[in-house]
């Protein structure tokens, strides 16, 4: 069928404008799909390879002090493979040219050989010289935040003594992909860094010669981490063990996992919706495209082409278009995927990137596109082919016009003849009109998601940092101290108000579920730290129970009134039974609260605090920092402003980037739907409109009839579009819930307005393009040929 093939190529060329518009919509869908899934896949693969190559440990524990010869006994725990003991200490740092308080964690590396576990990836400079007490390596995130290079110097307060340190190398560690300061919720690379120092000088400084206070283990294949943890805990309890934990509870890993989980949601839910919308459009548009070829189908049939022949011909036509979109989509997707993966590689500080595109992803995109295109085609071809050719060669029966509802109500006097034509045309083909509206509504909804995230993050910040956590500074102490310590803080010049807090690391258990977190003992009626419910009203913490984040209650499957088992992982490590009295709706973290007095009593420790919240007179802020720096009891200082900045940074660099891409592609889809609908409306009605021109209608009058329908469809699409967007956002907030944060469903009026504006702008551009096309109506042709 060579002649038919030639018809196919020429038809494609003639319809190139529309073919392009259809292909673009598909490019949007397929590219998003390929980009997201390949990015997620690559990150997962890269992380796993990174973990493997750097021998990331599987069980971790910290303790007060244990003799080095305990290793022998630890090694005999069944399932343990490698053991690495370390000395880890909190330090305060001074970075030249940076006045904010900076804290860090010092981690020891063996003097003579590289660590057996959690090996470091040297990015710049050199490793430490054995036995040097003035050399450190620092993690790359911290180095980047301050522009530090090998050879630069830092000052650290090590066990109360100030010491100048030289940076020999910049390194990456699988253990600190995310370094999060104790008590902080989000990484803040400016104010918190990880430093590696030779074991011997570090041990000497902390009186840890021949001893360790931190341990990491790797396991033999197939070993159950739980049993090793139990055995390790039994060994370490008498050395002040704080409870061993598996890799999934390791802070950096957990944070990374949550981040990747968020990405996964974005990378699966969203492209699926996108590809679905694109497929739906493809189906509708192709269906209509074929419908306009009804006469040619009839001619082919009149010559004796079978339905199968005709079906094959149009299937081939559509497959060409689909393949064009698919090829473009896959190409764009790979390009964007590589780019995005590289962005994430930098963001997560992976030493390398292993880009991977699963053939299944391509297969899936191809399958969905081809199916959508083919069903649309075959439906339309089938419809045309079912008619006897004689009937199909006549133009579509113009029979079903009816007076519209408005006219039946007797309101037609209010409307001109052209307006009635618009109304009747919409009513005549309700399904078609509905599909156009549905397409535009989906585009509108998708666009809403991008801004929704911004609204939500702003709201989270607002609630978390102006309503709930109102302190300017949080200070953590090296050890629980008497309440009197608070007075020395409150007495510092520049400190306006101070409140003590007692935090205890715990494992919470209910039935078979458990969760490691910290229990926060707050002052009753605390001014700076407020616990809020879902309606942002203050929740009072009763003297005899725990109030916990609703998300945590959900994780544990516990409701108010039930009794929680609390295993304290500090001091005497009591196991307590405390009733849950209420829940709070916090957006960040998973905390549990009780009154500080109650916590002190349960811990049998008197009036102790191990941290404080401060408000500070802004002009005296630097002075307060300096004063706090001088206090040996102070282990860390968190500044609220920098917490907000780092929160924004984290959100922006991960989720918001995705949102931006989606908004762009959403706009793409909006234009695709509107333009295609309008273009098809024109090709279906050009004869009718030309006839009107012949009858003396002006160009604007004819344009009104055609574009009026488009306008009404656009306006009708907005309310369901808003609804769809809201549902979509609602779904995403559910999908994104993690123990790091829960995004509230907050939609500002601006978000609705922006989505509406994009849809309206697409409609306007399409309308302008049609306006120009209407000038080319063939007035003579309509007189010469039939109808």
């Amino acid at each position, binding site marked *: 069928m060579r002649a038919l093939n030639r018809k196919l190529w020429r038809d494609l060329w003639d319809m190139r404008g529309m073919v392009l518009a259809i292909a673009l919509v598909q490019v949007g869908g397929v590219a998003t799909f390929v980009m997201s899934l390949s990015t997620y896949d690559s990150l997962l693969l890269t992380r796993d390879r990174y973990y493997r190559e750097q021998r990331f440990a599987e069980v971790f524990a910290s303790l007060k002090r244990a003799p080095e010869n305990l290793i022998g006994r630890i090694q005999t725990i069944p399932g343990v493979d490698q053991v690495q003991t370390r000395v880890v200490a909190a330090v305060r740092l001074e970075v030249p040219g940076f006045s904010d308080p900076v804290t860090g964690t010092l981690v020891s590396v063996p003097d003579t050989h590289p660590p057996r576990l959690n090996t470091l990836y040297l990015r710049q400079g050199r490793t430490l010289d054995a036995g040097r007490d003035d050399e450190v390596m620092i993690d790359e995130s911290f180095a980047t935040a301050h522009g530090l290079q090998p050879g630069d110097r830092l000052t650290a307060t090590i066990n109360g003594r100030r010491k100048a340190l030289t940076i020999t190398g910049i390194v990456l560690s699988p253990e600190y992909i995310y370094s999060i300061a104790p008590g902080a919720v989000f990484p803040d690379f400016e104010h918190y860094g990880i430093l590696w120092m030779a074991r011997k000088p570090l041990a000497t400084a902390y009186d840890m010669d021949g001893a360790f206070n931190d341990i990491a283990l790797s396991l033999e294949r197939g070993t159950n981490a739980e049993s090793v943890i139990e055995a390790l805990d039994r060994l370490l309890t008498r050395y002040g063990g704080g409870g061993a934990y598996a890799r999934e509870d390791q802070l950096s890993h957990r944070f990374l996992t949550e981040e990747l989980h968020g990405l996964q949601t974005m990378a699966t839910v969203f492209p699926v919706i996108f590809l679905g919308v694109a497929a739906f459009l493809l189906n509708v548009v192709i269906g209509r495209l074929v419908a306009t070829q009804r006469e040619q189908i009839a001619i082919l049939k009149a010559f004796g082409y*079978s339905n199968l022949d005709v079906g094959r011909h149009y299937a081939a036509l559509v497959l060409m278009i689909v393949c064009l979109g698919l090829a473009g989509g896959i190409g764009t997707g790979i390009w964007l995927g590589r780019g995005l993966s590289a962005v994430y590689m930098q963001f997560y500080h992976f030493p390398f990137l292993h880009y991977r595109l699963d053939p299944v992803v391509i297969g899936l995109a191809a399958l969905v596109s081809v199916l959508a295109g083919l069903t649309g085609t075959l439906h339309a071809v089938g419809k045309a082919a079912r008619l006897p050719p004689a009937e199909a060669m006549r133009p579509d029966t113009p029979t079903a016009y009816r007076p519209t509802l408005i006219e039946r109500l007797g309101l037609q006097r209010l409307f001109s003849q052209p307006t009635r034509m618009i109304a009747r045309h919409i009513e005549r083909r309700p399904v078609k009109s509905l599909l156009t509206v549905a397409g535009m509504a989906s585009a509108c909804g998708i666009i809403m998601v991008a801004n929704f995230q911004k609204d939500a993050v702003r709201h989270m910040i607002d609630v978390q940092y102006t309503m709930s956590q109102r302190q300017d500074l949080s200070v953590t102490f090296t050890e629980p101290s008497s309440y009197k310590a608070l007075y020395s803080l409150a007495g510092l010049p520049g400190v306006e108000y101070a409140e003590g807090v007692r935090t205890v690391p715990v494992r919470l258990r209910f039935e078979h579920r458990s969760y490691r977190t910290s229990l926060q003992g707050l002052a009753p009626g605390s001014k700076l730290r407020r616990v809020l419910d879902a309606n942002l009203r203050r929740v009072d913490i009763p003297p005899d129970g725990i109030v916990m984040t609703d998300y945590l209650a959900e994780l544990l499957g516990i409701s108010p009134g039930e009794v929680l088992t609390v295993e304290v992982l500090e001091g005497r490590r009591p196991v307590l039974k405390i009733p849950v009295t209420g829940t709070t709706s916090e957006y960040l973290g998973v905390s549990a609260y009780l009154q500080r007095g109650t916590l002190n009593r349960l811990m049998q420790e008197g009036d102790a605090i191990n941290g404080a919240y401060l408000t500070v007179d802004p002009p005296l802020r630097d002075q307060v920092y300096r004063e706090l720096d001088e206090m040996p009891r102070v282990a860390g200082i968190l500044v609220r402003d920098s917490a907000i900045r780092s929160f924004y940074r984290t959100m922006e660099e991960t989720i918001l980037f995705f949102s931006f891409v989606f908004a762009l592609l959403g706009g793409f889809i909006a234009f695709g739907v509107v333009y295609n609908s309008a273009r098809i409306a024109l090709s279906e009605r050009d004869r009718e409109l030309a006839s009107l021109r012949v009858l003396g209608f002006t160009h604007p009058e004819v344009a009104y009839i055609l574009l009026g329908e488009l306008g009404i469809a656009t306006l009708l699409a907005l309310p369901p579009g808003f609804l769809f967007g809201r549902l979509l956002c609602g779904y995403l907030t559910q999908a994104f819930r993690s123990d790091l944060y829960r995004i509230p469903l907050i939609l500002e009026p601006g978000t609705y307005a922006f989505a509406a504006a994009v849809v309206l702008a697409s409609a306007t551009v399409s309308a302008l393009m049609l306006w120009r096309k209407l000038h080319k109506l063939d007035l003579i042709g309509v007189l010469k040929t039939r109808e």
Partner: protein
Amino acid sequence: MLGLTKIYTMGEVEVQALRGVDLELYGGELVVLLGPSGSGKSTLLNILGGLDTATGGEVYYRDRDLTHADENTLTDYRRHHVGFVFQFYNLIPSLTARENVAVVTEIVRNPMTPEDALALVNLQERMDHFPAQLSGGEQQRVAIARAIAKNPAVLLCDEPTGALDSETGIVVLEALERANRELGTTTALITHNAGIADMADRVVHITNGHIGSIQRNTQRKSARELSW
């Protein structure tokens, strides 16, 4: 054709197009079906050509029953036995004259070449033109070439000159006449133009869905001699 009836349902209106038609076409003859518009002659032709099915009655092609034929039989019948010429040519706009003919010759047994078919209608000079580059008469001659290229047993023409002026119309009719004479194709030609009737072997008058009368011309005029 025996007792053929056809009822169209146009939206909410029922139109009885044929009200019991009996007619036989003989091999090699040229029949003109004459009648005013709306008389049912196009419907008759469409049913004859397997483009449409009858509501009642029976249609046979040779000893083949078309009345109860399924889609495949009808397709096969149209592909191998019938050629169509329509009032509005119905060429495929994206194909040249030669390719429009080739669309048909590629799917049938023993066709003539597109070039021969176009030579038969004197269009050998304009074979590589697209429909939009041809005049109405030329387009209709391409349509005739397309219809006769498969060497059909039956050639069915629905108002082939309806959209043409009389001079061009005569050129088109000459092409039909030549095909009928040289190839021996049974030709049925629909028209409301009584002036054309003189070129036929038989003239069938159709009014209001009936056959009014059948008139046999003792002497066929050539198309050249016609005028209207």
